[in-house]
């Protein structure tokens, strides 16, 4: 039982980390209807820039500020060079464009900053403490707190501020939003910037785990089933979806894995997600509209 | 005359808003029945219920003797309910001819393998379809646009293609959702002439929605007036024209 609990908890922690990556997708999908495959590359870029700055002696906050600044610049560039020329094109084209974008971003990142594997130490020690038979690492707790805090902040921003309101307007009905004078390009720049900062946070937490290297951009794939389950357009959905994926994946590996003598977590989340879709075609928190003719 | 279509206490609501409220009326075989009423009166919803795009919350639909609580669009089509759409629902990237051919789908019997490799029932199907399609295209005077991609055609023509697509499968009942929307007077006159001819030539029963009361009074033999999902009046043009409720609820207001 303790073993089950421990696995479950570990899974939930992992799930939060997935959710963190998924949030980046959700933000952008909400605002620009783009499924941004380059999110992974952005995570990698942010982490790499940050770690390089730190290695050149910048202190944490300076590095964080500078990197965030870079992510904002990236957002502006993306809006101008990719989104605007492609507006009103079908979603698949936009998706492919972001795929191309991911080549550009991680290619550029490694062109300028090299391909070395960097160690990233956030000074949070990652040794598990024994809490009544349950080994839980401080790092997990801190990481989860950060994720929760981030979600809270985003929640407040989107519900209280003017920007947030107009963002939700855009998400609900783009045309209507434009007609009341909300300027899409501005919204897009802002949202992509926020997504960039979220990518930075994700990059730091993941990077501290596995070192800052190209594979960081692969976390994208972990976020996809999370999105299907949580719904592409819901931040709470991303978190809940993340928890579900993380937990079920961990449990599946331990209890289902042995039956097929292999690890199932590469596909389990996806099959789970598909099963979910058959029950709830728009994910847990996704919103769907009825067809008008 | 026996009624081809009969609605019994049909109700429908979206997110609590009642679009149709215990609506009942009958359409006789061979007549042209017009649904009129202000915007949001539930006219389109009604058509959508009749051919199964929406599922009624309660109430029955009797078509051609058989009774349904709900009907799937495909089933409706196969039973012989044709339909045109208010907002253009043509297959934009297909030619006029292909659109019309698509309208014949309910008559297709060949399996997809036969269709692909052109054997078995496919041959007869092709010639049969081609014949019917060309006939309707000629009937609606679309020969010139036969091979044009519909998205490139003017609105008025598209409306006609929509009609052709619905008509080609020779439905017993034809539902026309604002066939003359956005047309100028001449075009409207043409369209209503066509509708009358269809009704006469094919003996098709027609239910149509139209705002232009002048046109409707000339065209329809039976008028049903809706308001907020409720039936306000139901009868011959004359009867309806003189119905006080109608004048109050509808004819008074200008559209």
């Amino acid at each position, binding site marked *: 039982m303790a073993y089950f609990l421990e696995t479950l908890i570990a899974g939930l922690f992992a799930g939060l980390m997935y959710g963190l990556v998924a949030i980046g997708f959700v933000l952008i999908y909400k605002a620009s209807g783009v499924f941004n495959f380059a999110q992974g590359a952005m995570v990698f870029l942010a982490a790499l820039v940050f770690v390089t700055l730190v290695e050149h002696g910048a202190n944490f906050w300076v590095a964080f500020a500078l990197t965030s600044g870079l992510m904002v610049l990236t957002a502006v560039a993306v809006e101008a060079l990719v989104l605007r020329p492609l507006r009103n094109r079908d979603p*698949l084209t936009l998706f492919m464009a972001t795929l191309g974008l991911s080549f550009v*971003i991680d290619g550029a990142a490694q*062109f300028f900053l090299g391909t070395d594997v960097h160690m990233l130490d956030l000074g949070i020690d990652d040794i598990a403490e024994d809490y009544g038979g349950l080994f839980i690492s401080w790092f997990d707790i801190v990481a989860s707190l950060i994720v929760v805090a981030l979600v809270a902040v985003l929640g407040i921003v989107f519900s209280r501020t003017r920007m947030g309101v107009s963002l939700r307007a855009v998400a609900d009905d783009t045309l209507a939003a434009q007609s009341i004078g909300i300027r899409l390009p501005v919204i897009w720049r802002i949202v992509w910037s926020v997504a960039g900062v979220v990518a930075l946070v994700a990059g730091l937490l993941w990077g501290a785990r596995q070192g800052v290297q190209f594979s960081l951009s692969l976390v994208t794939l972990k976020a996809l*089933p999370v999105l299907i389950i949580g719904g592409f357009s819901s931040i709470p959905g991303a978190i809940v979806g993340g928890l579900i994926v993380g937990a079920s994946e961990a449990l599946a590996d331990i209890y289902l894995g042995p039956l097929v003598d292999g690890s*199932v977590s590469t596909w389990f989340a996806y099959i789970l997600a598909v099963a979910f879709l058959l029950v709830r075609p728009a994910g847990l928190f996704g919103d769907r509209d009825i*067809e008008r003719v | 005359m026996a009624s081809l279509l009969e609605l019994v206490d049909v109700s429908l609501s979206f997110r609590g808003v009642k679009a149709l409220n215990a609506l009942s009326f009958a359409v006789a075989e061979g007549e042209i029945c017009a649904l009129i009423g202000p915007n949001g009166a539930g006219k389109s919803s009604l058509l959508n219920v009749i051919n199964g795009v929406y599922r009624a919350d309660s109430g029955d639909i009797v078509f051609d003797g058989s009774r349904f609580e709900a009907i799937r669009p495909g089933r*409706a089509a196969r039973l012989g309910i044709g*339909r045109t759409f208010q907002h253009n629902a043509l297959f934009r990237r297909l030619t006029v001819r292909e659109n019309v051919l698509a309208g014949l789908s309910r008559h297709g019997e060949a399996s997809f393998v036969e*269709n692909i*490799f052109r054997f078995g029932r496919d041959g007869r199907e092709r010639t049969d379809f081609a014949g019917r399609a060309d006939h309707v295209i000629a009937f609606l005077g679309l020969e010139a646009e036969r091979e044009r991609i519909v998205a490139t055609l003017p609105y008025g023509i598209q409306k006609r293609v929509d009609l052709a697509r619905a008509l080609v499968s020779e439905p017993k009942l034809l539902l026309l959702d604002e066939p003359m929307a956005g047309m100028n007077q001449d075009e409207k006159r043409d369209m209503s002439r066509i509708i009358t001819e269809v009704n006469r030539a094919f003996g098709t029963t027609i239910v149509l929605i139209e705002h232009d009361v002048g046109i409707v009074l000339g065209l329809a033999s039976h008028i049903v007036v809706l308001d907020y999902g409720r039936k306000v009046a139901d009868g011959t043009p004359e009867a309806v024209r003189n119905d006080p409720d109608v004048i109050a609820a509808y004819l008074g207001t200008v559209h």
Partner: protein
Amino acid sequence: MTTIQDSIPEAGPAEALPSGATLLQIGLVAAGLVIAFGLVPSLASDYWLSSIIIPTVVMGLAGISLNLLQGYAGLVSLGSAAFMAVGAFSAYNLILRVPGLPLPAVLLLAGLIAAVVGVFFGLPALRIKGFYLAASTLGAQFFFPWLFTNYPWFSNNSQSLTISAPRLEFLGYDLQSPLGRYLLVATVTALLIGLAFLVVRSRLGREWMAIRDMETAASVLGIRVARRKLQAYAVSSFFLGITGVLWGFAYLGTADAHTYNLDKSFQILFIVLIGGTATIFGNFLGAAFIVLTPILLDHVVLAANIAYLSDQGAITNLQRVIFGAIIIFILIKEPDGLSAWIRRGVGALRARLGR
């Protein structure tokens, strides 16, 4: 709007085209066959055959497979490569376990097996649309590599879990040589292109396009939408299955589960979008782009010899940047994909012949 008008020339029923155009078509087909089976084999070197032409043709075929699903039926799939894998592994085991099965039969069966699998993974399409559907097709993309890795039986317990091409031969002809492999690929491709045209010009193809353009209207007209969608997955996967066999055996000469990974699925998607949706020949342009660009960039770097400016590592990453940029550029500049080029060419020809 004329772009839309010509954007699906192959979709128009053949018998409907003016005779001038029909002649032109016949002419083009003949020319194509002469080039494919006459010029290319006699002119191309082994290098060109086995490392540029074969992969381009096979990837073009993959593009066609996905285009049938996406361009014509309006459905999406991010799992194309998985069905290629199913085809390849089926073919390998058929040859291994059913001795004496002729190559054409193997290809056909492999395609059919892939088709069955395709139908199964197409089921979500009956409930969901758009990105949810796209993402769910990834299920296949992650399931099959796992399946073929986790159960070595599929690779006949080979140590590296790879299946290596059996001796390719047909009617006693050895198809091992680059030329032999090319001829195999070219023949299968020619046949499948023919099949693709039959499909898109059949009632099936027409109803796919109807569903793509306006699903509700399609169902109201009595088109059996669900059935057609599953048939779309079946046909597309059939094509993909055979493509997978060619990729593994006629091109690489070997394959393992990860040969058909997510990147390959994305490449196929690129081919469709860059080549142009709802086209047949455009896919080969898309494929040529995907296959050639990295090689070209590589040659440019060698030729320009800019290594002294920076280190190789940086330059190869620079190539990655350029590749990505080109993709975005094409997506922006050619909404109808590179097939627009073909169309203009054919258009000019038609004009010459004065229809």
